[in-house]
């Protein structure tokens, strides 16, 4: 009987725990606790943390993904290290990238899957390797785009940890603003 009552206590404590953390985090960090949503013109256009599937040649592309960046599911293909599938997959992505990007070689990061299939970032090198394609399809100034990437990229933490990365959604939002400006002025 005592055991049953201890279980009941744990049930009550868990409920209190979940409720208090949610209340407090909503109070203290409202934006974060709701999924770091990004809004443009009062409409949600995504979360800062989740990647999106960009297919238009005018935008920067994310890494390949098993579920094509469907936001309500995550996962990857789980290719074993030495498997033929992995090699074929990378070879296929590689040749496709070359075709799209006028023979600019990609970073390996950009032609492999991430673990979640929702990776919002690409490496700085990966972003630079897409510049030629964007210049070609949008007629924007190349320097302008590179400057934009530099502005939006986050450096290695303390110059030491992690990679120099770019959030693709944020970068594309800036790019979209740029397109809007050029069409208006043009």
């Amino acid at each position, binding site marked *: 009987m*005592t*055991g049953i*009552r*201890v*279980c009941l*206590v*744990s049930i009550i*404590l*868990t409920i209190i*725990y*979940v409720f208090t*953390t949610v209340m407090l*985090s909503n109070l*203290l960090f409202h934006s*974060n*606790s*709701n*999924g*770091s*949503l990004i809004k443009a013109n009062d*409409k*949600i*256009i*995504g*979360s800062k*943390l989740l990647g*999106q*599937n960009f*297919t238009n040649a005018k935008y920067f592309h994310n890494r390949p993904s098993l579920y094509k960046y*469907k*936001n*309500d*599911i*995550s*996962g*990857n293909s*789980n*290719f*074993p*290290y*030495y*498997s*033929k599938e*992995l*090699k074929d997959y*990378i070879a296929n992505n*590689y040749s496709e990238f070359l075709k799209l990007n006028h023979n600019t070689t990609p970073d*390996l990061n950009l032609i*492999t*899957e*991430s*673990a*979640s*299939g*929702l*990776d919002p*970032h690409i490496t700085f090198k990966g972003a630079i390797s897409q510049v030629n394609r964007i210049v070609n399809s949008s007629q924007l100034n190349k320097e302008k785009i590179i400057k934009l990437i530099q502005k939006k990229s986050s450096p290695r933490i303390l110059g030491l*940890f*992690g*990679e120099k990365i770019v959030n693709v959604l944020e970068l594309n939002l800036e790019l979209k603003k740029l397109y809007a400006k050029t069409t208006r002025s043009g």
Partner: protein
Amino acid sequence: MFELIIFITLLLSILIALSYLLGKFIATHFTFPDNATKTKLEVFFDKIEQPIYRFCGVDPKKEVSAKEYFFSLFWSNIFLVIVCFFALYFQNILPYKGNVRWQLDIPLILHILSSLITNTCQTHHIPEQHLTHLSNYFIMPLLMFYSSASGIATGIMPMRSITLGKIGNPYTDVIKAMTRILFPICFLVALIFVALGMPNTFNPSVTYHTLENIKQTIITGPIAAFEAIKLIGENGQSCLNANSAHPFENPSYLSNFLEVVFILIVPLALIITLGFWLKNHKQSIVILSVLLFVLIFEFTLTTIVELKGNHRINNFLGMHYSNWVGKETRFGIVGSSVFEAAISNVSGSANSSLESFHPIAIALALFNLSNQSIFGVQGFGLVFTINFILYTSFFIGLMLGKTPEIFGKRIKKNEVILSSVLLLLNPLLVLFGVALTLILYPDHSTNFYDHIHYYTRVFYEFASGAASNGSGLEGLVDNNTYWNLSLAFVMFVARYGAMASMIMLGGSLARKPVLPTTSATFKTDTILFGFVFLFMSIISTILTYFPFIILSPVSELLIQK
């Protein structure tokens, strides 16, 4: 390489500082009977727990026998499982469903419950599709809290019996583990995670249109609250399919670093507690340095092979790249590799695709799963460590022709039998399980590599189930009746078999008198003992598993040459 060195240095300094505090805290708060003079913190927690004890009808001063200790834990775990079974089976009727309408079948429910209550948290289901928000964000944390608290109690009880000679009260230990360790720490950790960008809300989903005008649904929920207990409790259950790789479960490099800290903090603290209770800090320093040495070795080796990259792919591309397959950009290679090496020791969360790691990394993970004592799962890892100390002392005693003893207590037939049960239970379950599976479900692929890799996957699945770890090579299609039932059985027997023998071991050592130290006593707190301990721990694992590890990842490596 420089990044790795700084990463490990920072990790260790933060980890040791925090776990020293926690270890001291556990040592003062979990003594039995209570300290004569109480600190302010103890008085404060006592006041909170008083109504709980009264409600449950627990007398915190009553000491029980080892057998009663085990059965109290066992039956309360079973009761919780029964309640949660109905909650999961009728999840479509219960409120707070989110977007999910899914009738779980009974083998899957049994697997979920068995894996959660045993602190394994192997995930065969897809949380986003199979579990409603109520099941995912309330029932899972509940089971994680309770299994983790039972684990801490199981770790503390033998340690207290050996050092203080007292068995204690199971319910007090479980309640204290929840109110004094798990809930307060998880509360803080959850808030830290939200500050770093993790969502924590009751809103189940957000729908929006992307820049290219495609309709998308984001699944949100009390993710930070879930994540805190997942890491502090060393459970490793995922609330979103990709586990700690999902940007919501692990938003940045910093959060990734902190997750490694939080996974390792309680097992380290328990070893420091051992030093406090023995009144001999040298003992815990010796054990900690051996375990940390193994851990750092694994961090380094895993990172080196991953930074070196996949030579087949690099040859094809004609460039040198690190192995980016199945790793998130924001963690980088170092963040992913260190995380992987850490979780194969303690918990089952993953921040990268384990399947796509170099075979050496997988071989190391298999070694950890087989050994179980390199920090190990909540509470249990500590007892496996104590068991290896006992085993080493026994071995040394036989070599020197002395009566073997552990911390001044004689080791007799009874202890050796229980210790052997602990050592042999895991191989028995894993190796028979693998053999049976290969007979029932042989691999039909024609490619030799796929053939070997299938074997690795099966071996890994059983090893992680039996070690209460829960990570897995996810390429295995494992959500079917056979896998669900067989692993539910393996996890259950491995956990409660080990729990029973650990508690009985503690019980049989509790009443023994402590022999005075003489010049003839072989001391267990010396560097020499550290070496023998390391050697024994590695050798005994290798003796049991070597052929099986050779057949799997090592031969994967060899056929590529």
